[in-house]
C-alpha cells in the first residue's frame, strides 16, 4: 500500500444514531452470516442425522450458552431486518431529512429489541 493520507475513520466523527445503526447493520450481518447460517446448517444436519443426534443438538441449545447464542442470533436477525428495511426506504430516496433519518436510526434497533422479546414470548407461550 502506498503511504498516502487516508480518509478520516471512526475516531474522528462525533457519534450519532445513523452512524451507530449503519455499523450495527454490518456487525449483525456478519454475525448472521458466520454464526447464524452455521447454526441453521447444524440444525438441518442434526435433523437429517436422526433422533439421537437431534437430541444432542437440542441438549446443547437448551443449555445456558445455547440460549445466549440463540437469543443473540434472534436479536441480530431482527436488528439486521429492521436496519435492512430502513435501507430499502433510503434506497428509494426517502428518509434523508435530518430529523426523520435520526428518528428511524433510533427506532430501528429499538423495534428490533421489542421484536426479539415478542418472538421469544411467542415461542415460549404458543
Amino acid at each position, binding site marked *: 500500500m502506498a503511504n498516502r493520507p487516508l480518509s478520516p475513520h471512526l475516531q474522528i466523527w462525533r457519534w450519532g444514531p445513523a452512524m451507530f445503526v449503519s455499523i450495527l447493520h454490518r456487525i449483525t450481518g456478519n454475525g448472521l452470516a458466520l454464526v447464524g*447460517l452455521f447454526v441453521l446448517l447444524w440444525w*438441518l444436519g442434526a435433523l437429517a442425522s436422526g*433422533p439421537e443426534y437431534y437430541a444432542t443438538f437440542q441438549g446443547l441449545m437448551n443449555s445456558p450458552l445455547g440460549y445466549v447464542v440463540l437469543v443473540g442470533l434472534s436479536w441480530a436477525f431482527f436488528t439486521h431486518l429492521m436496519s435492512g428495511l430502513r435501507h430499502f426506504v433510503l434506497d428509494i430516496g426517502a428518509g434523508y431529512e435530518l430529523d426523520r433519518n435520526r428518528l428511524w436510526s433510533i427506532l430501528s434497533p429499538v423495534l428490533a429489541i421489542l421484536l426479539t422479546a415478542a418472538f421469544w414470548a411467542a415461542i415460549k407461550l404458543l
Partner: protein
Amino acid sequence: MGNGTSIGRVRGLGSAHSGAHHWLLQRFTAVGNLLLSMWLVVSLILLPDLGYETVSQWIAKPLPATAMALLIVSTFWHARLGLQVVIEDYVHDAGNKFAAIVALNLVAFAGAAFGLFCVARLALGAN
C-alpha cells in the same frame, strides 16, 4: 471489446470493475430473505414443539421443504455478497483479498450444498 460505443470503451475500468449488478443482487436476495425468514419465524412459533418428530415430519412436507431450500439459497447468496463487501473494505492486499474471496466462495457454496442435501434427505425420507 468495445471499439464502438463510448460506454463500451470504459465498461469494467472503474476502481470497482463493475457497476450496479452486485448492489442489485444484494437487494433482490434481501427481499427473498425477508419473505422466507418471515415464513421460518412464523413456522417456528406455530409448531407445537421443536422436537425431532414434529420438526422432521413438518420439514418433509412439500411446501416447507421447498421454502427451506429457497431460504438456504437466498440467505447463502446474500451472505456471500455481504461478506465480499466486508473483505473488499478491510483486506487491502490484492493477493490476500483474492484468497479471502476464493475461500468465501468455497464456504458459501459448500454450506448451501450441505443445507440443500439435508433438506432433500429429510423430504425424500431417507430416515
